[in-house]
């Protein structure tokens, strides 16, 4: 059986997602069974860019309006500068032909990396499955993550 690698994607920051997908693709390339558990702000990375923000209640509506998500909307954890820093980083990455978060995400999934979305956060935020990209393999909770992480040779919290 292949060795396991798990990543908890807690952050929704673009730079952290880049590093995480890089690791996931690397893990898959050395034959590891990789899974990424998206929770809290990390869920933004696997939301559809054009996803609906439908949810019930004024607080959830406000939250989902401000926290729209989608990989292309992910900002930098540092020097974001209302998007200017991100735009510049994007230019620099293009210059060296470095793939974007969205491209890395597709690559990771094609390499067999499993995407798991946290149902607890989804419920709290009042979102439905239609808010997420079709690449999400399963919707689950802590036991699913721990069952993988228990056998994991590499377990990371991003």
């Amino acid at each position: 059986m292949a060795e396991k690698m798990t990543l908890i994607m807690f952050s929704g920051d673009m730079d952290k997602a880049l590093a995480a997908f890089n690791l996931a693709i690397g893990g898959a390339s050395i034959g590891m069974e990789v899974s990424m558990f998206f929770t809290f702000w990390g869920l933004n990375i696997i939301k559809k860019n054009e996803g609906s923000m439908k949810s019930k209640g004024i607080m959830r509506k406000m939250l989902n309006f401000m926290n729209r998500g989608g990989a292309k909307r992910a900002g930098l954890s540092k020097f974001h500068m209302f998007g200017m820093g991100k735009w510049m980083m994007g230019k620099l990455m293009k210059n060296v032909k470095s793939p974007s978060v969205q491209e890395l995400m597709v690559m990771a999934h094609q390499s067999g990396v499993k995407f798991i979305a946290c149902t607890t956060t989804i419920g709290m935020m009042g979102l439905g499955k239609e808010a997420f990209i079709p690449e999400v393999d399963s919707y689950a909770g802590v036991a699913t993550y721990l069952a993988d992480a228990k056998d994991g040779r590499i377990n990371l919290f991003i």
Partner: protein
Amino acid sequence: MKADATLDCVGLYCPMPIHQTANKLKELKTGQVLEVLASDEGIKEDAPAWCRATGNEFIGMEEQGGEIKVYIKKTK
């Protein structure tokens, strides 16, 4: 060095060279040699490390004017 296939990763950065190497090696038969062309220095350490991790054989490396050639034998 003689190779059975060549993969051009010039201009690409991590994780692209190892990702593409892993995919390309799947197309080769056991015993065949893959030549990887790269420009990112990281490949010098990454290619042997990738081979250690996957059980394939790192045969050698050549460097000429910024272009790095890495040779990997498929043994897995």
